[in-house]
C-alpha cells in the first residue's frame, strides 16, 4: 500500500520564527552625504563608523557625566546567539560599531549578519543573514566591524567579500557586488564608509598573499567606481620598492579597517596592512610600498596622493590599519595615528609631512624610530629556524581597536597592549588561499600588561589607567567628560577624561573587542556595547584564548 506524503510546504525564513517585528520606520531615507558631513551636529545619532568623518570617536552627549556615571546600568540587552555551523565556529567575535539613526539601530554581527533594532528597547525589527561559506579563508576569526547607512540603505560587507546594500526599512537586499576573490584568500571585515554618492570598502586577506585594495561603488546602483591597489604593479609609482619577480603579486597591504575623510582636502585617509609574507622579508627586499602606510587617496579619482610609511620593510606584522584621527592644532590640519609598531605618528594631513613621532607603549625593542622618522630595525626574524623575541608582538601595541580624541580636553585616548612574541622564520612556497606567514609565531602568555593612556597633540602622556591585561577594545570619549574602555576580563569601565580616575565598571560576562558608541532617544542617553570575545585572540591575548565568547549587545543608561 502506498501512502501519500504529508505536504510539508515551502521552507520559510528562520527569522519568521523569531518574534521580530518586520519593518523599520524610514529613518535612513534622509541620511545624505551632507548630513554625515555634519554628523556631530545631531549627537543623538551615530551616523557613521567613527561617529564623524574625522575618526575621533567622540560624542558631545553629556547627560551621562563624571558625577552620575556611577548610577548607570543595563537598559536592555540584545542576545545575538548563533545556530548551526558557521565559519570560524571557535573564533567569531562581536566587533561591530552600531549605527543609530533617529531611534533605530543597525548593527552587524559575525558571519554576514545584520540586525535592525529599536534603539530604545532593543526589540529586533528585521535581520539579514548572508550565507557564508564554512571554508572561507579568515586569518583572524569570523568578524565584522559594522555597517554604513545612507539614502534608505544599509551597507555591509560579508566574509566572502561581497558588498551588499539592504533596504533599511525591510532588510531586503537591494544590490550585491562581489569585490574580492575567496579562492585567492580574500575576505571582507571592514565597515563601509559613505563619501559623496559612493560606498567605500577595503579588502582583507593580508595573511594569504593577496594584493590589497580599496574600492568605491555607487551607492544607488552598486556600479563600481574605482579600485586603488595598495601594492603597485611594475612600472607604477612605488614599484621600485619591490624586487623583480612575483613578490608584488602577493604583497599584502590590505585595507581591512575603515578610513577617515576630510572634505576640504577631498582625501580619504586609510591605513594599510602588513606586507606578505608577514615575517619573511628576504623574499621581498625593499620598503614594500604601500604596505604599513598611511595613504591619502583622492576620493574622486581613487588615486594615492601621498603616503607615509610607518614600518618600511615590515617583518613583525605591524599593519598600519589603525584609524587616522583628523584634528587641528596650532592652526595646522593634522592626522594622528597610533601604529601597531608602538609609535604615535602625527602628520600634516594636507601633504603627509611628518610632524611628530612618540612611543606610546613602554616596551619597544623591535627597533627604533627617531624623531625625524628614521627607522632602525634591531630584532627581527632573519635566519631560518632561529627564534627571535620582540616587543610589541604582531598584534601590536594597539590592535585594530580604536583610540578616541576629545576636542574638549584636546587629548587622545589610546587602548594599549604591552605584550611580546617570538617569531621563528620558516620559509614556505606561495600557494593561493594557503596562509603565507613565513614564520611560526608564539605570543607571550605571561609578562603582559595593558592600559588606557591619554596623550596630547605633542605626544606628552597626561595620565594612564592600568588594566590587568592588554586593552583590546575601542575607547569612546564623550562630552560628559568620560572615557569608556572595555577589558578582556569583561569589565566595562568609565574613566574621567581629564584625570583618568576610575569612576564606574560593570561585568559584562565576556571580553570586549568591539567599538561601543553612544546615542540618544527621546532625550535619554545610551551607551551601546557589543560584547563578544574572540577573533585573533591567540595573536593579541593568548592567555585569554579559553574565555567565553559571548554574543550580546548591552546598552547602558541612567535610570528612568
Amino acid at each position, binding site marked *: 500500500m502506498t501512502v501519500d506524503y504529508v505536504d510539508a510546504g515551502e521552507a520559510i525564513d528562520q527569522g519568521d520564527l523569531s518574534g521580530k517585528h518586520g519593518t523599520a520606520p524610514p529613518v535612513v531615507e534622509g541620511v545624505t552625504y551632507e548630513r554625515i558631513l555634519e554628523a556631530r551636529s545631531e549627537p543623538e545619532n551615530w551616523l557613521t563608523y567613527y561617529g564623524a568623518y574625522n575618526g575621533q570617536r567622540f560624542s558631545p552627549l553629556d547627560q551621562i557625566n563624571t558625577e552620575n556615571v556611577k548610577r548607570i546600568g543595563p537598559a536592555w540587552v540584545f542576545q545575538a546567539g548563533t545556530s*548551526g555551523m558557521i565559519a570560524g565556529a571557535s573564533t567569531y567575535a562581536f566587533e561591530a560599531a552600531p549605527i543609530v539613526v533617529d531611534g533605530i539601530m543597525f548593527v552587524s554581527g559575525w558571519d554576514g549578519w545584520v540586525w535592525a533594532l529599536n534603539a530604545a528597547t532593543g526589540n529586533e525589527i528585521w535581520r539579514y543573514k548572508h550565507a557564508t561559506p564554512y571554508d572561507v579563508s579568515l586569518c583572524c576569526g569570523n568578524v565584522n566591524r559594522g555597517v554604513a547607512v545612507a539614502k534608505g540603505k544599509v551597507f555591509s560587507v560579508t566574509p566572502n567579500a561581497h558588498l551588499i546594500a539592504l533596504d533599511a526599512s525591510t532588510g531586503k537586499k537591494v544590490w550585491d557586488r562581489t569585490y574580492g576573490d575567496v579562492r585567492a584568500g580574500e575576505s571582507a571585515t571592514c565597515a563601509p564608509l559613505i563619501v559623496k554618492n559612493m560606498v567605500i570598502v577595503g579588502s582583507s586577506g593580508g595573511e594569504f598573499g593577496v594584493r590589497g585594495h580599496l574600492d568605491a561603488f555607487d551607492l544607488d546602483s552598486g556600479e563600481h567606481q574605482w579600485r586603488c591597489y595598495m601594492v603597485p604593479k611594475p612600472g607604477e609609482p612605488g614599484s621600485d620598492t619591490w624586487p623583480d619577480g612575483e613578490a608584488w603579486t602577493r604583497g599584502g597591504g590590505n585595507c581591512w579597517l575603515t578610513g577617515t575623510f576630510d572634505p576640504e582636502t577631498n582625501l580619504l585617509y586609510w591605513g594599510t596592512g602588513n606586507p606578505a609574507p608577514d615575517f619573511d622579508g628576504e623574499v621581498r627586499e625593499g620598503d614594500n610600498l604601500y604596505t604599513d602606510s598611511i595613504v591619502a587617496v583622492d576620493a574622486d579619482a581613487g588615486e594615492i596622493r601621498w603616503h607615509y610609511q610607518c614600518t618600511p620593510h615590515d617583518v613583525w606584522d605591524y599593519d598600519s590599519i589603525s584609524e587616522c584621527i583628523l584634528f587641528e592644532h596650532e592652526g595646522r590640519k593634522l592626522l594622528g595615528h597610533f601604529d601597531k609598531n608602538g609609535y604615535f605618528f602625527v602628520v600634516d594631513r594636507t601633504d603627509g609631512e611628518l610632524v611628530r613621532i612618540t612611543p606610546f607603549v613602554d616596551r619597544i625593542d623591535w627597533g627604533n624610530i627617531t624623531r625625524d622618522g628614521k627607522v632602525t630595525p634591531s630584532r627581527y626574524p632573519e635566519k631560518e629556524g632561529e627564534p627571535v623575541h620582540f616587543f610589541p608582538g604582531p598584534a601590536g601595541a594597539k590592535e585594530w581597536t580604536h583610540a578616541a580624541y576629545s576636542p574638549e580636553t584636546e587629548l587622545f585616548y589610546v587602548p594599549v597592549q604591552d605584550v611580546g612574541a617570538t617569531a621563528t622564520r620558516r620559509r614556505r612556497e606561495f600557494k593561493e588561499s594557503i596562509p603565507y606567514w613565513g614564520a611560526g609565531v608564539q605570543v607571550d602568555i605571561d609578562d603582559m600588561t595593558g592600559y588606557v593612556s591619554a596623550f596630547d597633540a605633542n605626544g606628552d602622556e597626561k595620565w594612564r589607567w592600568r588594566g590587568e591585561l592588554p586593552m583590546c577594545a575601542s575607547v569612546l570619549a564623550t562630552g560628559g567628560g568620560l572615557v569608556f574602555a572595555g577589558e578582556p576580563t569583561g569589565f566595562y569601565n568609565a574613566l574621567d577624561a581629564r584625570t583618568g580616575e576610575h569612576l564606574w565598571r560593570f561585568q559584562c560576562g565576556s571580553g570586549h573587542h568591539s567599538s561601543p558608541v553612544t546615542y540618544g532617544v527621546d532625550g535619554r542617553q545610551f551607551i551601546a556595547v557589543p560584547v563578544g570575545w574572540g577573533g585573533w585572540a591567540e595573536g593579541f591575548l593568548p592567555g585569554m584564548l579559553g574565555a567565553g565568547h559571548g554574543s550580546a549587545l548591552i546598552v547602558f543608561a541612567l535610570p528612568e
Partner: protein
Amino acid sequence: MTSAQERSDLMGKLGLNMQNRAAIGRLLNSGNVGEAKEREDGRMTATIRINPDELTWDPQILVMPHGGDIELELINDDLNTHCALLPSNGDRKFIWLVNHSRGRATLNLDGPGCYWYSSPTGNDEGRGLTGAIVVLGDVPPEARLDRPDQPRP
C-alpha cells in the same frame, strides 16, 4: 593507517558510516555525494532524502555546479520527525519534516565554497543529519585580483 582507496571499506568495517555501531551516531559526511541538475535557465534542482533509521541526508554532500538559485525537494522517509535549516542569502530557510513528508526549499548561494545544512532538533545534527552543499566555480572576473595567475595547492 589507511589509504584513500581503502577508506570506504574501512568505514564500513568499523561502522563509522552507520548509526550506533562505532560511534553513537554516524560520522558526519560519511554519506552519499550527489550533483544538482541544472535547467536551461540556470536554476538548479535536487532531491534530498532522509532514509529510515539512517539519520543522515541522502545525498549528504550536494554539489552545485555554480552559485545561484537551487530548488530542493526534501523528503523524509524516516519514521521520526526531523527538520531542515538550510543556508540561503537573506536568511536561513527552515522547514519541519514530520514522518513521511515532502517539502520544498528555494535557496540562493552566491559563490564558491562549502555551506552546511542540518536538522536542528534534538541532536539530529550530531547524530548525522548535518550535510554540506558545495558550490563550484569562481568569483566574477571583475572581482579577481589584477595579477598573473598564481599557483594553487
